[in-house]
C-alpha cells in the first residue's frame, strides 16, 4: 500500500501542520511516511502545499504527479490540483471557501464546510483539523486513534484546546460518513 495526498490552501490555514501530523501518525502506526513541503517563492496570501505519502513499504519519490487524495482548502488550490487525481481518488473540498465542484465521475468528492464547522465549535482556526478528520474518515489510510493521539500531542497542550481539536477532528470524520 502506498497512498499520496496533496494538501493545499492559503498560507496560514495550517496546511503544513496537518501534513506533518499525518507523518507523525503514520510513524505511530508503524508505517512509513514522507512529508514534502512546497518552499521557495511562496507569497503571503498565496497558495501553500505539501505532499504526504504513507506506505507500508519503503517510499521512493516524495512527490507524485497523480494523486490518491487531495485536500483543497481554497478555490485556487482546488483549480490548480483537481486534474491530478487518480481514478477512484478522494478529494476533500473545503466547501466553506471552494465554490467549484468535482466534475470527474471517477473521483470521490467530499464537500466539508470546514471553516463553518470550525466556527460552530468556537474557532475558525481548527478548520485544518476538521479536514484532517475528514481525510482519515474518508480514506481509512490510518487508524483514527493514531491521528487523534498526534492531534492531542501537538495541539492539546491546554485542556480547552485539546477538547476543541478533538471535537474538530470528530466533526470532520462525521462530515464524510455515508
Amino acid at each position, binding site marked *: 500500500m502506498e497512498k499520496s495526498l496533496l494538501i493545499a490552501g492559503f498560507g496560514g490555514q495550517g496546511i503544513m501542520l496537518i501534513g506533518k501530523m499525518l*507523518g507523525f501518525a*503514520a510513524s505511530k502506526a508503524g508505517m512509513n*511516511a514522507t512529508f*514534502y513541503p512546497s518552499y521557495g517563492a511562496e507569497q503571503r496570501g498565496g497558495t501553500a502545499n505539501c505532499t504526504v505519502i504513507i506506505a507500508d513499504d519503503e517510499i*521512493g*519519490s*516524495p512527490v507524485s*504527479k497523480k494523486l490518491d487524495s487531495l485536500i483543497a482548502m481554497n478555490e485556487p488550490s482546488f483549480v490548480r490540483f483537481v486534474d491530478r487525481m487518480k481514478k477512484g481518488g478522494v478529494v476533500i473540498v473545503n466547501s466553506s471557501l471552494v465554490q467549484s465542484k468535482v466534475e470527474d465521475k471517477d473521483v470521490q468528492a467530499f464537500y466539508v464546510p470546514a471553516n463553518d464547522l470550525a466556527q460552530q465549535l468556537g474557532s475558525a482556526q481548527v478548520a485544518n483539523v476538521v479536514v484532517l478528520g475528514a481525510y482519515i474518515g474518508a480514506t481509512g489510510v490510518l487508524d483514527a486513534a493514531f491521528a487523534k493521539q498526534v492531534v492531542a500531542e501537538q495541539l492539546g497542550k491546554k485542556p480547552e484546546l485539546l477538547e476543541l481539536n478533538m471535537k474538530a477532528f470528530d466533526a470532520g470524520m462525521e462530515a464524510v460518513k455515508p
Partner: protein
Amino acid sequence: MSKEFIKGNEAMAEAAVRGGCRFFAGYPITPQNDIPEYLSKRLFEVGGTFIQGESEIASINMVYGVAATGVRSMTSSSSPGLALKSEGISFIAGSRIPAVIINVARGGPALGTIQGAQQDYFASAKAIAPGGFRCFVVSPSTVQEAADLVYEAFEIADKYRTPVYVLTDGVIGNMMEIVELPPMRDPEEMLSSDAWRITKYNDDSSARQFSTYRPTGEMLTVDNIAMAELYEEWQEKEQRWEAFMMEDAEVVLTAYGSAGRIAKSAVKELRAQGIKAGLIRPITLFPFPNKAYENINYDKIDKIFVVEMSIPPQFVYDVELATKSQLDYININTSGGVIVETESIVDKVKESM
C-alpha cells in the same frame, strides 16, 4: 531504538552531534538553514561551539583552524556558498585535516534556484577547488541515509584525514521522513587525533605543524603521490552503492541522491507493469562505485537509463567510464530546480525499450 519523523536537515544536524561534531561554523543560505539553526541551540547542550561566521570564507577557515586542534568540525552551505568555501576546503585537504562539509545543493550556475537539484556533480565529485585534490564524497537518497552518512562521515574523515563532503539537495534537506537516529558516539571510541593534531613545541623543539606551501616540485611530488595513493585506497576499499532488483534485471537504470529514490519508484512501477527493471544507485560519488557496474550482464544489456536532475548531464560521464563505454546511454534529465517525475522516467524507459 525509537523512530522519529524528522526533517532531513535536522536529522543531519543531530547525526553530526551524535557522531562527535563539537564545532560548527557557517553562514546562512537556503535550503540548508535548518542545519545551523538546529546546531545553534543543540551544540551548546553538549559542550560544543556554534559560530555564525561573518561570511562563508570566514566559516570554512574557522573549521580549518578548529579541526586542526583535533575537534570534530563541520560546516554546511548551498552551492554558491560552497564556491566561496572552496579555497578553504583545498587548504583542509592539502593539510590532511579531517572535516565534514554538507552541501544542500541548489540549481545553478550562479544563484540558481533553491529546489531540488543535481547540478553540482562535477563541482563536488571532481573539482571542488584547484589543485587536483578530491574529497570523500557521499550522496544520500533518504533522510535515514543522510543521517547515517553524516554520522559516519566524521569517522571516515578521521580515518583518512580528509574532508568528507556530503552532497544532497533541497529534496532530502526539506522533506520529513521516519528515521532511526544513530546513538551518541562515545568519545572513547573515536580515533585519537594525536597523529595529526597541531601541537606546541616540545622540549626537543619538535612540534607538529601544518604548511600547505610546497616551494619545490620535489616537495609537492611527495604530497601528491600520497594523495594519489589515498584515492587508490578509497577506490579499492570504500566504493558504496545499492543494487536494487538487479538480480534478474533486463532494463537497468542508474541514479544517485534524490533522483536515486525517484528512480527506485520508477523501477517498482515498471516491475508492476511486467518490465524487469533494476537500479544501480551510487552512494559514494568519489570513490565512484565502478564495481557496481561490473555485475551488469553485458551480453544481454545494451543500454542504461541515466536519471539526473542536471542539464546538461554530468553523472552520466562517470557511468560511461564505469561501464567502459559498452552501452547506449539514455539520459533522463531535468534541470536543477525541477524534480524528476516517476511517471516521466517510466514513460521514457518504455519508449526507448
